[in-house]
Structure formats: structure tokens, C-alpha cells
């Protein structure tokens, strides 16, 4: 099994006719993902290499029965696209857009929760989600993942997600699902959402978690793990040497005052019984060791 997406997931791409949407939408389809449509207002009736394009999400859902949406539109249009997807009946939204203003993100998240409580948003500013061999939505290169489990991966950083997939796949360890929750201040899906799903998924037998500086999501996740998780967890937190007060690339990656340091996050995770590693390679090796002992 896998979490959130599998071989039955049908996907539309909002922004399929744009350069990012086209490139990644086609790449996802080539991976085997059921990409059933695209949405670009004003371009309904056309197609992108055989994928039909619709004017609105409502229409796309009516015609294709899509359950998931992949949003690849510029920051100023992304909040409206997210709400349109939810209103159109989409259950799982992946938004890779980077650079959405925090105010828009907070407003959109709260509208989504209040008006469409059953809808899950992944991102914004995330690499997407891949259940190897079944479904890949987003920008992850499918060839670095390995099907068959038993590891679930959840990560705030895109490139470190690839690094984690690569470390495991190279050593012959597969993944059930790899979720990139993104580096923005208001992620639609957080660590706990993913840990909860991995804990409930019988095929996921261990979890790798990759955090970074800023906010307190890792600490909250640690608390959740201590109380609810019986599967082994390996963690790596980036930014031990990051200076305070500077945004390290991601809008959410900032140490404010004494809050949000990597050290505090690693300590909280270690206290929760998580095996905390000093770099991605070490985390990969630790996970391989755990999986072999299962």
C-alpha cells in the first residue's frame, strides 16, 4: 500500500499548457501516473500530447472523474487555483508553486479548511508526492525512487528528498510513498499528517523524516511520535550551522530568536526515540540497517 496516492489516483494538471506544467505533467504521465486532463482558462478544447485541456476544474472533473490535481501556476494565480480545485470536487491537491506571499497562503489555507474540510492540500512550494511504481505527482525524478517499500519518507526540502530517495534506492531499499511537504510557513499537509498515515499503512514499516530549521513542526512531530508511533523513525534536520535571523532559501526556514534551531529539533526527536542522524548519508545508512533487521 501507499499513502494519499496510488495506482487508482487520476490527476488533472492546472497549468498544463505552461512550461512547468507541461514538462512535469508529461513526465508524470510517462512515469505511469494517470494524468487525465489539464486546466487552462481559455484553452479548453485543445490538448497537450493527447491530454485534453479544459477551461475549468469543474468541467475537467465532470468529464474525467479526476480525484487529484497538480497545480503548476505562477504565485499570483496559485491561491485561486487551489480554491478552484477544492470547489471543483478535487480531493487531493499538490501545489508546487514557489513564492506565494505568506498572507495569501494563510488566507487560502484557512478558507480551504473552513469551506472544504475533506480536501487535502500538499504544499505549496513542495516537490510533490511519489508512490513508486504507482503514481508520481510533482517534480521528483521517478527513476531515483524504488517500488515495493517498506520505507515511508516525509521531507520539508525538495533536493534532500531526492537525496534520501537516492541513498535508499541505491542500497536496494524501496519506498511506499515519499511526500515532500514543502518549505513554506503554512504547509497544507504537515509532518504529523504524514506520520499518522504512515503509521496506519501496513506496508510502511519504517519512516524517514527530513526536517529543517524554522517553525516548530519537527518538535510537534516528535511529541506525536512519542505518543502514537510504534514504527521506527530515522530523522535528519538540515541547518545546524545556519545563522539566526536569515531566511535560508525557503520562506519558512528561519531561526527567530532562540526558536526553530536544528539543535532543538534534533534533541526533541531524539527524546521521542527517533534515531537522529548528522547528515543525509548517515540517515540513509541508518535506515538500511533498520530495514535489514526488520
Amino acid at each position, binding site marked *: 500500500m501507499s499513502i494519499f496516492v496510488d495506482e487508482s489516483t487520476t490527476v488533472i494538471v492546472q497549468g498544463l499548457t505552461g512550461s512547468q506544467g507541461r514538462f512535469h505533467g508529461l513526465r508524470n504521465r510517462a512515469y505511469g501516473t494517470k494524468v487525465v486532463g489539464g486546466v487552462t482558462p481559455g484553452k479548453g478544447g485543445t490538448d497537450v500530447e493527447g491530454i485534453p485541456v479544459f477551461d475549468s476544474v469543474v468541467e475537467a472533473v465532470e468529464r474525467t472523474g479526476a480525484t487529484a490535481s497538480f497545480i503548476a501556476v505562477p*504565485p499570483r494565480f496559485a491561491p485561486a487555483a487551489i480554491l478552484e480545485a477544492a470547489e471543483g470536487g478535487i480531493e487531493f491537491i499538490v501545489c508546487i508553486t514557489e513564492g506565494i*506571499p505568506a*498572507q495569501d497562503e494563510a488566507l487560502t489555507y484557512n478558507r480551504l479548511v473552513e469551506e472544504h474540510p475533506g480536501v487535502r492540500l500538499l504544499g505549496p512550494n513542495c516537490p510533490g508526492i511519489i508512490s513508486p511504481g504507482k503514481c508520481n505527482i510533482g517534480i521528483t525524478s521517478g527513476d531515483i525512487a524504488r517500488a515495493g517499500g517498506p520505507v515511508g519518507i516525509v521531507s520539508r526540502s525538495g533536493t*534532500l528528498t531526492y537525496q534520501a530517495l537516492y541513498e535508499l534506492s541505491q542500497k536496494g531499499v524501496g519506498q511506499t510513498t515519499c511526500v515532500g511537504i514543502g518549505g513554506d510557513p503554512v504547509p497544507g499537509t504537515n509532518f504529523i499528517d504524514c506520520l499518522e498515515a504512515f503509521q496506519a499503512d501496513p506496508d510502511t514499516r519504517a519512516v524517514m523524516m527530513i526536517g529543517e530549521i524554522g517553525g516548530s513542526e519537527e518538535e510537534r512531530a516528535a511529541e506525536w511520535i512519542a505518543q502514537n508511533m510504534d514504527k521506527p523513525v530515522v530523522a535528519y534536520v538540515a541547518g545546524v550551522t545556519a545563522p539566526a535571523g536569515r531566511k535560508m532559501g525557503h520562506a519558512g526556514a528561519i531561526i527567530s530568536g532562540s526558536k526553530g534551531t536544528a539543535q532543538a529539533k534534533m534533541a526533541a526527536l531524539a527524546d521521542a526515540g527517533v534515531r537522529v542522524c548528522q547528515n543525509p548519508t548517515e540517515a540513509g545508512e541508518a535506515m538500511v540497517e533498520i530495514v535489514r533487521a526488520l
Partner: protein
Amino acid sequence: MDLFEYQGKQYFARYGIPVSPGGVADSVEEALEVAERVGYPVVVKAQVKVGGRGKAGGVKLATGPDEARTHAQSILGLDIKGHVVTRLWVERASDIAKEYYASFTLDRPNKVHLGMLSAQGGVEIEVVAAESPDAIAMLPVDPVRGLDVATARRWVAEAGLDEEARAQAADLLVALYRCYTEGDCDLAEINPLILTPGGEVHALDAKVTLDDNAAFRHPEWDEFRVDEFEDPRERRAREKGLNYIGLDGSVGIIANGAGLAMSTLDVVNQVGGTAANFLDIGGGANADVMAAALEVINSDPKVTSIFVNIFGGITRVDEVAKGVLEALSRVEIASPIVLRLDGTNAVEGRAILAPHLNDRLITEPTMLEAARRAVALAR
């Protein structure tokens, strides 16, 4: 982007938040002109983006021109925690009856806005929070509903602001919330917010952090950018559109993706080195971006080796390799370069570099080995 106090006050004023009349001065003469215009007594305040100005002698009261001259002279050029003062804000001095604290920021765990209000202002809010947490009235604000005057009135009463300050403070808080949301701030903080003996409420300081992601809808922010970067390396990187943060070490870092870039800094540190910078070339970087990144790093005299750590996703490793060669053909790179290349088109990328490898251009198979090599070469 963090604003200077004077910029923050100008920004507050746009949203109708009352501030003291004042002006900017870059010289003693300008300071005297502003003082003359707003009327004595005045406060002469150093404009630096660091706390503790008062203790460092960067904030002084002047009752007349002689004092104003003396203070302006002493504060201009003053070094406050490594920030040299080149600009002053001179404003009419206020009589203070009471000092309060007010701010809005994002409550990340709860994903709503958070207003903080306290009748104990003028000191660091962290100190108040630690010593008497009950003295801060926290107000979660749902972004969908916003903040109305009725709620703000209950809030000022709950925080225990003085009776005569409450009506004005409530209006000011609604204006501050509008500044924070419509003005796209990550943080809008007033400390102290004062009540004068005459019964007026206004902002005596301004701490504002703007959300760079919202710059596209704020053309008025351009004027704030003039002196945004004190570090010349950061200014150069900005001109090239690179995501760069200057640090103090000797290993220049280039990576793709914020997480990998942070991780690269950590790994360099673990193997005994120090990073000269954080540089994320982002997703989809091409040869031009890579060349620009190497040039910016090359201009840093502290750098003695360069570590390029790429895991291709959207970024194609062959493009990165071309960029490295491009940079080498354009400028002389003073330090040896160690590369670790994996991911999309890594085989093609390594093949492009293969004929050019020597003791100044080196590849290593893993991140850890590359870090060790770069750190050894930096010594």
C-alpha cells in the same frame, strides 16, 4: 526584508498609524535641519538593523541645536555590534506617560495570525514573556475573518491598557493589522507604543519585516531596497538574482535547493571546515546561473576552496557542468573547485567535465567525500 526604523515608520504612516514627526539625516547638517523643522526637543536615533541601540549610545535626546550637533556627530560613524551608523532618524521628542507593546505575526503551528498586546512595553517582549507571561494578551486572528474594531476594543481592555488609551489603541491596532496583512508584513511590531500625558497614543518605534514573496504587488517597496544589503557580496549576488547569504568561513558553497544548501554547510562543518556562504542556485538553474554563482563566490577574498554540490531534479547536471566551464572561460577562478554531481543527467554532466579535470577542478562521488576534499583544500 527587514526595514530600518525610519522606513517602518514611513510604512506605518501609509496605513494611518500615528508616528512622531521626523526626518532622515545622513549628516550633522541635515540632522540640524530636520530638528529645526520638527521643533526641539528632538531624539537623534541611529538607523541600524540591530537591537540594543540605546545601550550602545545610539539614541539621544537633544533640547537645542548644540546638543543636537554633539549627538549627531557622536552617533554617525558609531559601530553598533558591527553595524556602522551612516544614517539618523531625527524626530520630535515625546513625553511618555505609559509604554505598551503591540505586534502581529504568523502563528505557524496554528496557521492563523497572532496579535500580541501588553501594557508592559518598552522592554524586550521575550523578557516579558519569560517573566510575566500573563502580561501579554494573545489574540489569534483567523485570516478569513480579519480583525474588527469591536474585537480590538475587547482586546485592549483584556490587555489592561489604561482607560484613556483604549479607544485610540483599538483603532491603531486595526490599522496595524491592515498594515500587516494588506502591507504583506511577516512582522509588524511597535515597541513601545506610547500614551502621552496629553492622552495621545502613537508608535515610538517600528519593527517591520516585509515578505519578499509579495514584492510583485508592492512597487512602493523599491525605495526600501536602497540600503537593503550592507554586505557587498550579498549586493552582487542580488544583482545576479542569486539566493545568497554571506558567512565568515573559507569554503565557498554552491548547491541547488535550500535544503541541500543548508545540509552542505552542515557537512562542511562536520568535517572540520567553515562555509563562506549559503548559495542556493534554485531549481532549473542553467549554465548562466552557475557561471554567475561561481563569479560571486570568486569575488569573496576569504574563499580558499569551492564546493559545488548538485543533486539534479529540475536542475540538469549537464547544464551545471557547462556553467562551470563557462565561468572558467570567462574569469580566472582563484580557488580550486570540488564538485559532487548526482541526479538528472549526471552521467552527461560528468562526461562534459572529464577532459577538463585537474588539481584545480575535481569531482568526488559523494557529498561527504567532496566536503572532506574541499575542506582539505581550503587549508
